[in-house]
């Protein structure tokens, strides 16, 4: 009973914060410092069916409408909480309202490509999602994966090189999981067979991959760019009909295969983790390896396989950097995405859906920043860029509730050894 009331208390606190923010945005954006001009939202991106092309609204009215929507949604959330129903939908609507209110205010007199903003956000979060799934598969079975960055970078490198040499993007995409798996093999061997501290190990693997790709980039990829580093791109495959739906079509259904693979892998991991024998065993090994061993599960073998599998997942995410989006490999092009993916995993409390949304949030926040700095708003872009990191700190310090890692995460399993 105590746990339940704690959860309720925290939810109530969350709703209180959101209500306060909605009221603030109504006061500030709608009454005290309203935008003087009209804000334009653009909805059309490609050749989808057009319902509304642009939507022009006075900044002040728009901010007021969205803030009030947000306040209403907060009220509904309180009612839902009282009745014991799920509050995630009203809370999401309320957060969206606050965000939109902020956008209409800050973009007064300017144009916001709404559909492009969301699509770009999704694209930025793709490698983060793959990275987070990689970490999840590892960590749910009890092996800490700090080496996501290395997995992503190595596979981005290999996919670019293979695609350049064969002149086929598909080969790049196929090779990438093997590069990720090779990094995983290093991680698995040293972590499981030689019991090296996993946090330190992951860190060192990242150093190695950064050093090696930087070296080969300068030694081979720059001098002979045409041979080594001019990969073709994967084609965008719009899904028939669905891709024509306004707003939703360009955001969700007009992508390369990598994005669709992301959906497949998140579904597979979610389903696998909770509905299959593999998932049950993985969770058992991550929470209580001794018990798992007692019922005949080979703890270290399962962990080894999961770590390799995790590398393959991250590998696809790495391919997204090169054949999936920009083509040529660039020095340290993953730029810390592996660590953000790790943060998304923790933010999402080691659950696939939680990690997915956390990664989407990071991707969107980053894209919002670049959109706002392109249209030229008053906030220094550096502070906007800090937002995902500050959000992570807030998340891990427990404002979204205490997060708990799998109990045996990071502890090498030695049969009969002390824990």
């Amino acid at each position, binding site marked *: 009973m105590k746990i339940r009331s704690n959860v309720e208390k925290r939810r109530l606190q969350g709703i209180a914060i959101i209500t306060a923010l909605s009221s603030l945005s109504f006061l500030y954006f709608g009454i005290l410092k309203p935008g003087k001009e009209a804000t334009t939202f653009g909805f059309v991106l490609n050749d989808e069916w057009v319902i509304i092309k642009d939507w022009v609204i006075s900044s002040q009215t728009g901010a007021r409408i969205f803030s009030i929507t947000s306040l209403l949604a907060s009220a509904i959330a309180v009612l839902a909480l009282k009745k014991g129903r799920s509050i995630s939908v009203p809370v999401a609507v309320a957060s969206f309202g606050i965000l939109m209110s902020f956008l209409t205010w800050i973009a007064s007199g300017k144009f916001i490509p709404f559909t492009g903003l969301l699509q770009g956000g999704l694209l930025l979060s793709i490698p983060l999602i793959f990275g987070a799934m990689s970490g999840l598969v590892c*960590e749910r079975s009890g092996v*800490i994966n*700090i080496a996501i960055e290395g997995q992503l970078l190595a596979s981005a490198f290999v996919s670019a090189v293979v695609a350049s040499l064969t002149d086929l993007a598909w080969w790049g995409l196929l090779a990438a999981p093997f590069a990720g798996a090779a990094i995983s093999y290093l991680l698995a061997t*040293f972590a499981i067979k*030689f*019991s*090296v*501290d*996993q*946090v*330190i*190990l992951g*860190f*060192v*693997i990242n*150093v*190695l991959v*950064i*050093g*090696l790709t*930087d*070296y*080969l980039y*300068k*030694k*081979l990829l720059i001098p002979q760019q045409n041979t080594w580093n001019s990969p073709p791109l994967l084609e965008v495959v719009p899904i028939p009909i669905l891709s024509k739906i306004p707003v939703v079509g360009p955001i969700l259904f007009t992508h390369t295969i990598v994005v669709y693979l992301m959906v497949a892998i998140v579904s597979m991991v979610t389903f696998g983790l909770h509905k299959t024998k593999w998932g049950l065993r993985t969770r058992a090994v991550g929470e209580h390896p001794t018990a798992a061993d007692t019922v005949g599960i080979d703890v270290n073998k399962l962990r080894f396989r999961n770590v390799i599998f995790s590398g393959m997942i991250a590998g696809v995410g790495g391919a997204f950097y090169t054949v999936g989006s920009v083509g040529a490999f660039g020095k340290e092009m993953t730029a*810390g995405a592996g*660590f953000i993916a*790790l*943060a998304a995993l*923790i933010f999402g409390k080691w659950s696939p859906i939680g990690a997915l949304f956390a990664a989407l949030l990071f991707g969107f926040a980053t894209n919002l920043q670049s959109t706002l700095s392109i249209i030229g708003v008053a906030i*220094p872009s*550096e*502070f906007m*860029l*800090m937002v995902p*990191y*500050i959000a*992570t*700190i807030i998340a*891990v*310090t*427990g404002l979204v509730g*205490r997060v*708990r*890692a799998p*109990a045996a*995460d*990071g*502890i090498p399993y030695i049969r009969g050894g002390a824990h």
Partner: protein
Amino acid sequence: MLNRISQIGHSLKLPGLSFLMAFTITGIIIALSDSKVMGKIGSPIEFLKSAGSSVGNAYLALFQGSIYDTRLAESGFFEGFYPFFETLVTATPLILTGLSVALAFKSGLFNIGAQGQFIFGAIGASYVGFRFDLPVGIHILAAVIAGMFLAAIWGGIVGFLKAKTGAHEVILTIMMNYIAAYFILWILKTPTFLRKGRLDPLAPEVKESARLPLLAGSEFRIHAGIFIALAAALFVWWLLTKTTIGYKFRAVGANSKAARTAGISVPFVITATMMICGALAGLGGAVHVLGSEYALNAGIAGSLGFDAITVALLGRAQPLGTVFAALLFGALHTGGRMMQSNTGVPLDIVVVTQGLIVLFIAAPVFVRYIFRLKKLNVASALTSKGWNG
């Protein structure tokens, strides 16, 4: 006496073998990525000869660029040591950031945040250095203290948050590094920090009175910072072994549950450790600005904060070990520059060497397995705590 020597010899076995393997693998990578060598793949003997000369030249350049260069010595024996002095300049901030990471290890914390702490140390020292006019000694002291203070707060935030909420310091410090990296980009654009007449992010140079004295004349870059770094190493050793607070640090690092039972305040130790770690890395940033860079720029920290982690791991989190590890990595980086310009082997290969050395040092069981050793002296392997630790 003999016993003692054999003991030392024994404890050097692991680092020795790790170095051997690391340099061997690095050599193989250098040879395999050299098109001249690969062109001779048809005849084994020519291939090996060519590989040998390729790797040999690279390693010779690495030595000449970091320790002693006979070509420079033509203008005087002393001048031949120019590369060694450069190594010391590179090693100075590495020693300080390395100590920051090492001290954290002793309290059972993995401080990935030396990068951010270094940045704040550099910002503080730079500001006091260019903004105020003070007498020589006092100016240096004020600038150093300002940098250490900011960095101690930056590190302390992590300690405080961990102590209060149990959030893991690895995630916290990584996030704080990003925030610090964007913060320095922003602050360099502000009117206070932007140098007059410049548009690129570059602060004014610190005034003469705030600069650390040069040790070997203006032709060499070697400055008094190396003594500050060595003093800091001595301080960390003293703190850890001779004081009550250091004892508490180590007790929490060894077993925080037992330490709590023994009446040690774990939250206090975590916060205090991170503050001191911050101050050490911040001192690194301050010394770097006041001793060799003079002007704050966006790339001031380079990858120093991350190299610090490999330094501390190689030094097994011991103050003296950290000093030697920093000297070694300083030499690799300094020599790497000459290797790059003379033999065309990119500098980045030394990062691989560095990573390999640390990997093998961290995996004594692996080294034992490779060399089929029955016994290998493994002084307490370094560990960090998992997410729930």
